[in-house]
């Protein structure tokens, strides 16, 4: 540590359910170098000041989706957000919005996981194939239909960004809908009607009022807002045309 060591103030919203009534802020002065991420700032605090500081992390390369938090009010992955970009101002980190806080920066994701499971995120084969038949053929344009929506890392930043999630915690929400859309658009899949039941339900796509902030904060350019909004069109078609279609659409 040289004399020119820069120090940044990190204000952390702390909350320990076993001892605190309410979340409260605590400020730490952290020496940093230009290559240090906000996550590394938090690690510095845990290693040197207070081992009880709690947050999720693993890959530190923006791919595992663990380390989301509100950084100066904006949902971000802390491993790819750098302290230098905030210096010399104070930086404030808090648990992701719209989720119950479990402790410090750790939020309860069980609701999100239920939504993810509910949309049936697996291939429901249109035409089953045996291994001997080899792979399905997918042309570049069939591939282009869904590939963007496969990039979601389940970081839930879009949930922290979406005010409608905040207003209605049952809203299936951007990432889970994007995942449903990913399978619906896959030429190997024939499960759209099954998934539509959920997308078109009262917890489904129409909770979205096209705020669009979900897509703006998405670190992987999934554009979940687009998936949600496009499915309003699909769900509406399904709603109006179900009487015409021979199968009667979904219930």
């Amino acid at each position, binding site marked *: 540590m040289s004399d020119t060591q820069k120090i940044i103030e990190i204000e952390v919203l702390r909350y320990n359910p076993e001892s605190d009534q309410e979340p409260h802020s605590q400020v730490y002065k952290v020496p940093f170098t230009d290559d240090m991420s906000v996550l590394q700032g938090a690690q510095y605090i845990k290693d040197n000041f207070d081992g009880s500081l709690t947050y999720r992390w693993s890959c530190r390369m923006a791919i595992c989706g663990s380390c989301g938090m509100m950084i100066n*009010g*904006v949902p971000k992955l802390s491993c790819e957000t750098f302290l230098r970009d905030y210096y010399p101002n104070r930086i404030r980190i808090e648990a992701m919005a719209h989720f119950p806080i479990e402790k410090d920066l750790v939020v309860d994701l069980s609701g999100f996981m239920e939504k993810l499971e509910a949309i049936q995120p697996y291939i429901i084969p249109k035409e089953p194939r045996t291994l001997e038949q080899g792979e399905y053929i997918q042309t*570049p*344009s069939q591939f*282009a*239909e869904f590939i*963007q929506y496969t990039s979601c890392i389940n970081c839930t930043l879009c949930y922290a960004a979406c*005010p409608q999630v*905040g*207003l209605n915690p049952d809203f299936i929400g951007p990432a889970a809908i994007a995942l449903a859309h990913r399978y619906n658009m896959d030429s190997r899949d024939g499960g759209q009607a099954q998934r539509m039941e959920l997308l078109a339900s009262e917890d489904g796509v129409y909770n979205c*009022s*096209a*705020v*669009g*902030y979900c*897509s*703006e904060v998405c670190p992987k350019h999934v*554009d979940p*807002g*687009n998936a949600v*909004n*496009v499915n309003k*069109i699909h769900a509406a078609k399904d709603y109006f045309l179900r009487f015409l279609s021979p199968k009667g659409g979904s219930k």
Partner: protein
Amino acid sequence: MDGWWKKNPHFVEYMIHEGTAVFVAAYALTLLCGLVRLGQGEAAWNAWLEALKSPFSLVAHVVFLAAIAYHAFTWFKLFPLTMPPMVVNGKKVAPEVMVNTGLAAAVAAALALLGFVWRIAA
């Protein structure tokens, strides 16, 4: 969730463009008044036309114009979010292209409307 929409410029903009709806409604009600007056006969209709000339009405319409123009602008700006991706030759069309296509369509529609009104009037 109180005051969430103040927390972030993105939300403030969202509220503003949502807010244009009030003016859309106000304008539609103005037209509905006109329709009612039309139904009541020539005198009533002319009185409505006269009322439109009042400074209050003129100012109100300038406001409507601004709000609804902003509505139109944001409506198309949201196209990349709200519309299915446009694919040309197996490639996704850039968002700006979608927005600009929408805006161009709006300008064309407005001019067509003006031309049409002008033709029946003349």
